[in-house]
Structures are given as structure tokens and as C-alpha cells.
């Protein structure tokens, strides 16, 4: 009797094991282990509302019809400093085409004012007491930046400090050309 083991198909064992394994490992090469895909992408931005740093209150109806950049930051976050400078320039140059909303993450109001005076301001800042807004956005830690199109759909979530390339690319995707 001819067994499977002695058949002429025996050599197939190695490629059958090696090809799927190789494919699996190769897939991992192009993946950033720090990026956790956001389930919000392609969905409407969760309702944003609450008190702002200048003692007003914010309602996301004011975002309607324009692309928005939602930046989650904290006073203890070092990369957020450079990011605030970029956002300040963005608001100065394109403030009429888009909205920028800051969300304070675990940051007291005094620390936030101090930080903004030093590194950049000029946009609405949600104080997010209790951290519920950050929860609704699925934030794991600052800085995180969400790009929302004019229809209110989240198009991209960037974890970590913004770069000019990311900003240019993702703003173009929501219809703002730098």
C-alpha cells in the first residue's frame, strides 16, 4: 500500500507550511504596532459638547458644513507643544475653511491656560471634565488628532505628534488644501 507520506506529494508539506507563515509574518512588516485602528473611521463624529476653557459652552452644531480637526492634548505632553504651534499656524492661515477644536486630556484649567499662552492658541478648547469626551473618541493617550470632513464623518485618527506631511495629506482628504 502506498501511504501519503511516501507519495510524490510529500515535498508539498514544506511550501504548504512555509508560504502561509511567510505571508503572515510579511504582513506584519508594514504594520505600525502602536497604531490601534479606530472604529470611528467612516462614522459620524460622536457628539461633542461641554464647557470651554473661556467659560463658554460648546455645541457641535457649530461644526456643521466645514471640515474639522479635533486635537486631544495634555499639559504634561511634550510633543503637544510643537503640535500647538502647527495648529496655531493652521488656524491663522485657514481658520475660515475649517474648525479646530482642542480637547483637554486630564488637564486642569490653569495648566491649560499656561500651556496655550506659551505654545499656541486661537481655537475652541473643551475642558472635558471627567474625561467623557475623550472616552467617546476612544482616546488612549495624548496627542491624538481626528480629521473630520464637512459631512461630520471621521476620516482619520492620528496617534502621536502631528507632522506637516500628515497635516497636509489628511487635510487634503477632508477638502482643505494647504
Amino acid at each position, binding site marked *: 500500500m502506498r501511504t*501519503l507520506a*511516501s507519495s510524490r506529494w510529500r515535498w508539498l508539506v514544506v511550501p504548504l507550511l512555509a508560504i502561509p507563515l511567510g505571508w503572515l509574518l510579511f504582513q506584519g512588516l508594514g504594520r505600525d504596532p502602536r497604531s490601534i485602528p479606530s472604529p470611528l473611521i467612516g462614522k459620524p463624529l460622536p457628539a461633542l459638547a461641554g464647557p470651554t476653557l473661556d467659560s463658554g459652552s460648546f455645541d457641535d452644531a457649530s461644526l456643521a458644513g466645514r471640515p474639522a480637526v479635533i486635537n486631544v492634548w495634555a499639559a504634561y505632553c511634550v510633543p503637544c507643544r510643537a503640535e500647538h504651534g502647527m495648529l496655531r499656524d493652521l488656524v491663522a492661515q485657514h481658520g475660515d475653511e475649517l474648525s479646530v477644536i482642542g480637547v483637554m486630556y486630564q488637564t486642569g484649567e490653569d495648566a491649560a491656560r499656561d500651556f496655550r499662552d506659551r505654545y499656541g492658541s486661537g481655537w475652541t478648547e473643551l475642558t472635558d471634565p471627567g474625561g*467623557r469626551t475623550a472616552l467617546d473618541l476612544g482616546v488612549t*493617550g495624548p496627542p491624538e488628532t481626528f480629521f473630520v470632513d464637512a459631512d461630520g464623518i471621521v476620516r482619520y485618527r492620528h496617534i502621536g505628534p502631528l507632522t506637516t506631511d500628515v497635516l497636509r495629506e489628511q487635510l487634503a482628504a477632508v477638502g482643505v488644501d494647504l
Partner: protein
Amino acid sequence: MRRWLLPLAVAGLVVLGIGALVAARQPAPVLTRDEQAARLAGELRCPDCQGLSVAESHTAAADAIRAEIAEQLAAGRSVDEVRQHFVNRYGQWILLQPADPLVWLLPLVVIAAGVGLFAWWLLGQRQSPSQPEAAGETDAPLMVDDEARRTVRDELEALDG
């Protein structure tokens, strides 16, 4: 008789499986809202910790999640709905035990494949050395024709003589 064996075995397995499922689901004790909240907090990953559940952590984010769980349960939402609320925002990542069945099945599949391959290899080892002999024995049957008979007789006579 014999052809009933397989269906019977399958039916028996199905009954056992359903029984096991029912038994596993039966002792669902009635939990108070606080117990439900604590259990759910134990299932969720604390977003700003390393490998801790919300229940084990006291960071601001873990506190916020606990408050949100308590609030939503108080508003009458079920534990499943509240869990889904967090999955919708953070994805499967927020669950310490993945809900995707593939993750649980894959190790079993890999182990089964390994055992199968080993068995295959073992069978091959046992079979292959005996094969050349078998081939020799069963090779073309001996031909006994007149010439062969004559040769044998001549040689026997030569021995006798």
C-alpha cells in the same frame, strides 16, 4: 443496524452539546448593578495603563470608564449594550478577552495540524523501510518452463554423478 450508528452518534453529540450549553448558561446568578459594573470593569482594558483592566486601575481614564459604566447601567442599559458602547469607540482592543472566535480556535487548529503532521510522518517512517522487500517478493512470478526443468534435471544428475 450499522448504518444507524453514525446518525446516532451525531445525534448523541448534538444532544450532549446542547446540554452542555444549557448547563453552562443556567447558573447565571442574578447580579446587583454594582456587581455587574465591577464585572464589566474587569473585562475592559484601561486605556492609559499597560495590561491592566479598568477594575484594577485608578487612572483618570479608568475612573471615567467606571463612572460611564455606572451611569449607563443606572439608565437601564444592559451589560452587553454598555460593553458594545465601549467597543464602538475603542474597537475590540478595549476587551481584555477578544470576542473574535477565530482567536480562540486558531491555536486548536494549529495543534491539530501539528499532531496530524506528526502522525503522518510517523506512519511514513514505519512504512517506507519495508517497502523495497515487499516490492521484491511480489515482483514478476517465477517462470517455470521446459528449459528450466531441463537445467534443473541436468544439474541434479551432475551432482549425483
